[in-house]
């Protein structure tokens, strides 16, 4: 007999465990009924999927979309907005306000010297970032987003900085030329504004990358 839960999980990756269990249970019963006619495994499988309206890949996508819409808590926002743009914007806003606040409050960053170059390490700001990573990923998970979307929402400030730096780099090379100093400086900037914030945000987002515990018994 096919592993129905596995099949449903593969085709509805963002669905709750409870939904996966329920849909799998429905397919299992349909399959049992189809098998009772004495037809082959392949024929029973084909009949099951046809009766469930899941003959093509797009049928699974329709099912995923319909289920997502029906259980989504968000009203006027579409799924992409509620699962990605809104959490990402809130994470970015929180991280920006936190950076401003640490500067206004006069919390001093630490100056670290690397190969004769000073790097300003905003450690108080970095310490606040897990909170915003957690907010982004949790809001995204609440909107039934996939793990990748939750991660993107949680890491959005670092991803935006990465994009900005990748745009700035070619201009820097054009204006200053390709020098060892320029590349090291860029690398340090990348570590300071992208890698370290990304790590801090990831720590906060991590608990929300797991699927929430369902209410029902079947797992």
């Amino acid at each position, binding site marked *: 007999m096919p592993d129905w839960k596995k099949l449903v999980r593969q085709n509805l990756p963002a669905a709750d465990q409870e939904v996966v269990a*329920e849909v799998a249970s*429905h397919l299992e019963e349909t399959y049992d009924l189809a098998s009772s006619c004495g037809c082959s495994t392949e024929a029973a499988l084909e009949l099951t999927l046809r009766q469930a309206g899941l003959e093509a890949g797009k049928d699974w996508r329709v099912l995923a979309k319909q289920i997502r819409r029906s259980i989504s808590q968000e009203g006027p926002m579409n799924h992409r907005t509620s699962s990605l743009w809104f959490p990402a914007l809130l994470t970015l806003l929180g991280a920006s306000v936190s950076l401003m606040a640490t500067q206004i409050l006069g919390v001093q960053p630490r100056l670290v010297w690397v190969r004769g170059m000073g790097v300003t390490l905003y450690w108080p700001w970095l310490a606040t970032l897990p909170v915003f990573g957690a907010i982004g990923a949790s809001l995204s998970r609440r909107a039934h987003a996939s793990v990748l979307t939750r991660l993107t929402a949680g890491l959005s400030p670092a991803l935006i900085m990465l994009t900005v730096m990748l745009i700035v780099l070619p201009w820097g090379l054009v204006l200053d030329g390709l020098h060892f100093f320029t590349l090291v400086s860029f690398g340090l900037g990348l570590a300071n504004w992208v890698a370290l914030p990304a790590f801090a945000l990831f720590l906060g987002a991590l608990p929300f990358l797991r699927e929430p515990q369902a209410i029902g018994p079947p797992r």
Partner: protein
Amino acid sequence: MTKRISSKISRGSGELAILSLLAEQPLYGFEIAKQIGERTGGALQFTLASLYPLLYEMEKRGWVEGHWQTNQGGRDRRYYRLTTAGRKQLAPLRQEWQAFFHALDAIAGVSHA
């Protein structure tokens, strides 16, 4: 064999069909789809994409309530039962559909049995 009703028409009647069935007894998704198919002679048929989103939507509105139950064979099923709010919806929905059939009858000569 009764002619199968197109999904556009059957979608609207799904709420009434499900509420009517659940008013008799709590049922799980597969059984709901099966009974609707059998009782309508196959005219109304629910696929997964039409059944479960509707059930979840009705659950969100508080019309039905789902709970897991394990049968004697050890199989877990999510049974739905009608809530008080759902029971209250049944009469107005029936009236709405009756009014709809009367209106359709007046225009297109389509009357319900």
